[in-house]
C-alpha cells in the first residue's frame, strides 16, 4: 500500500500528509453517515417487529430506500429562522451538536493499527470531546427564544452533566486495569490472561471483572445520547420536541445525524472498552473488524430494544438514578478494583 502510493505522494509533495489524512477522514465519515441512515431504518423496522407491525416497506425493495427518501425530503425543505431568534447561535446550534460527535471518531481504532490518530491520550480526548456535545443542545435551546426549546435544553444540560460523571468513573476503572489511555492498548490488554491463553478470549474481556461498570456505562450511554427511556429532553408530552421545536429541514437533520452518530459512537466504545473490540471470542477464529461490527450492532440493538420496552422516566427519577445510584455504585466498584489490583489475587499483573 505504501509503495503503491509513493508516486502519488511524490506528486503532491509536502501537502501529501494533509491530503492523505483528509482522505482517511472521508473514509471514516462516509461509511458512518451510511450507517446512521440505515440505523434509522433499522430502528423503525426493529421496533416495528417488536410491536407486531411491519415498519416502513413502501420505498424501494422491502423499504430499503426509506432513509434516502427521508434525507432528500429534509434536504429540500426550507430552513426557517424564527424572527426572535439569536440568528448566529441558531445556526451554530446544530453545528455544535454534530461536530463533536464526528471529531470523536478520530481516535477510535477499527482494527489493530487501523486508526486515524493513534494518540497516547485517546481516552482523555474522547472524554473531552464528548463533554462538548451538550453545547449543541443548550445553544439551540437558548437561541430559539421560545419556551419549550429552552426547557428542553435546561433538562439536557442537567442530564448530560450528571451522567457524564458515572461514565467517567466507569472509564477510570477500565484505564486502571489496562494501565493505558490508548484505545488500541486497551483492546490488546484484554487479550491476555489465563482464559485468553486457553482460547476462550470472551472470558478474559473487561466485561466480566467490570460487569457493574459495563452495565452503568451502557445505561449512562443511553442517557447521554438522550435516547428513550431517558429522552425527556424531547419528551413530546411535556416539551413537544425540546430543543428541536424551531428547527426545520437540514438544521433539524443535523441534530438527528448527531444523535445517531453518538449512538454508534457509544456502542463502538462499549465494544472496545468492555467487549474486546476486534478480538475474536474464541481462539480458533481469527480476529478482525467484523467482530467489532457484530458487537457494535448488538449494543445498538440494546438501544432500540430499550426504546421499545421501557416507558419514559420521570425527570426526578432520572436525576436520582444518575446521582444516587450510579455514582455510589461506580465509586464502590472503583474501590473494589483498586484493592483487587493491589491484592495477591490480582488477575492483571
Amino acid at each position, binding site marked *: 500500500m505504501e509503495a503503491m502510493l509513493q508516486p502519488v505522494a511524490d506528486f503532491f509533495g509536502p501537502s501529501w500528509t494533509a491530503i492523505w489524512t483528509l482522505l482517511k477522514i472521508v473514509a471514516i465519515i462516509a461509511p458512518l453517515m451510511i450507517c446512521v441512515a440505515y440505523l434509522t431504518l433499522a430502528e423503525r423496522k426493529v421496533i416495528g417487529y417488536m410491536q407486531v407491525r411491519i415498519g416502513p416497506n413502501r420505498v424501494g425493495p422491502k423499504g430499503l430506500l426509506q432513509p434516502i427518501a427521508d434525507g432528500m425530503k429534509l434536504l429540500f425543505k426550507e430552513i426557517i429562522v424564527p424572527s426572535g431568534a*439569536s440568528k448566529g*447561535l441558531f445556526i451554530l446550534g446544530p453545528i455544535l451538536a454534530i461536530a463533536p460527535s464526528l471529531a470523536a471518531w478520530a481516535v477510535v481504532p477499527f482494527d489493530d493499527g487501523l486508526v486515524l490518530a493513534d*494518540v*497516547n*491520550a485517546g481516552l*482523555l*480526548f474522547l*472524554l*473531552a470531546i464528548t*463533554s*462538548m456535545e*451538550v*453545547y449543541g443542545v*443548550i*445553544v439551540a435551546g*437558548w437561541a430559539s427564544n421560545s419556551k419549550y426549546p*429552552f426547557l428542553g435544553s*435546561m433538562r439536557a*444540560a*442537567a442530564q*448530560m*452533566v450528571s451522567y*457524564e460523571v458515572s461514565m467517567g468513573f466507569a472509564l477510570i476503572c477500565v484505564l486502571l486495569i489496562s494501565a493505558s*489511555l490508548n484505545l488500541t492498548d486497551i483492546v490488546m490488554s484484554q487479550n491476555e490472561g489465563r482464559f485468553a491463553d486457553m482460547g476462550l478470549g470472551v472470558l478474559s474481556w473487561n466485561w466480566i471483572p467490570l460487569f457493574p461498570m459495563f452495565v452503568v456505562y451502557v445505561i449512562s450511554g443511553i442517557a447521554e445520547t438522550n435516547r428513550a427511556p431517558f429522552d425527556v429532553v424531547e419528551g413530546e408530552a411535556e416539551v413537544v420536541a425540546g430543543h428541536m421545536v424551531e428547527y426545520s429541514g437540514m438544521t433539524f437533520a443535523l441534530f438527528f445525524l448527531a444523535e445517531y452518530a453518538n449512538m454508534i459512537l457509544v456502542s463502538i466504545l462499549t465494544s472496545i472498552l468492555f467487549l474486546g473490540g476486534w478480538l475474536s471470542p474464541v481462539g480458533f477464529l481469527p480476529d478482525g473488524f467484523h467482530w467489532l461490527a457484530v458487537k457494535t450492532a448488538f449494543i445498538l440493538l440494546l438501544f432500540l430494544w430499550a426504546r421499545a420496552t421501557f416507558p419514559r422516566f420521570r425527570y*426526578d*427519577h432520572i436525576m*436520582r438514578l444518575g446521582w444516587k445510584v450510579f455514582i455510589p455504585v461506580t465509586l464502590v466498584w472503583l474501590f473494589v478494583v483498586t484493592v483487587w489490583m493491589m491484592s495477591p489475587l490480582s488477575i492483571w499483573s
Partner: protein
Amino acid sequence: MEFKTFVFYFLAAIMVLAALRVITARNPVHAALFLVLTFFNAGGLWLLLQAEFLAVTLVMVYVGAVMVLFLFVVMMLDINLDRLREGFWSYLPVGALVGILMLVEMVMVLGGGYFGLEAMPAPAPVAADYSNTRELGRVLYTDYVYAFELASLVLLVAMVSAVALTLRKRKGLKSIPPSEQVAVRREGRVELVKMQAEKDD
C-alpha cells in the same frame, strides 16, 4: 514559518479576540459562550506544549462542566441590560485603576530582566512514547501525595458545606421514595371482599 508557529498564532489570535469579546459582548450568554471558546483555545495551546493532560482536563472540567452550569444560571437570570450599564461611568475610574495596576505588574514580571526567558534553555524534546499523564500522576501520588490529599479534602469539605448550606427541606411534599414505590405488593393495596349476592326482589 514553521507549521507549529502558525498553529500557535492561530490559536492565540482566536483566544485573545474571544477573551476581548467576553468583556465587550452585550449579551451575557454570548459572553459566556466566548469564554468557552477562550478555554477551548487555551486547551489547544497546552496541547502544543505537549501537556495533553492539562489541555484535556481544561476542556473537560471548564468547558464540559463548569461553563455548562454557568450558562445554565446565566440563561435563567432575568438581566436588564440598561440597568447593568447604568453605573458604568462611576465604576470606570476604579476599574481602570485596577486594570492599569495589573498591567504594570504583568509588564514588570514578564518583561525586563527578571523573567530571563533568553537565559532559560529550551526544554529537551521528549520521546514519542512520553506520556504527560503518567508523569503528572507519578509526581502527584509520590512526591506531593500529602499536599494532593489535603487539597482533595479541602474540596470535599467545600462540597459538603455547599450542599449543607443550600439544602432546604420543604414541608408538604408529596413525593414518595422510589424504594417504597417498588416495594408495594398487591396485598398492601387491594383487598378482596367476598360477600353474598344481594337478592333482587
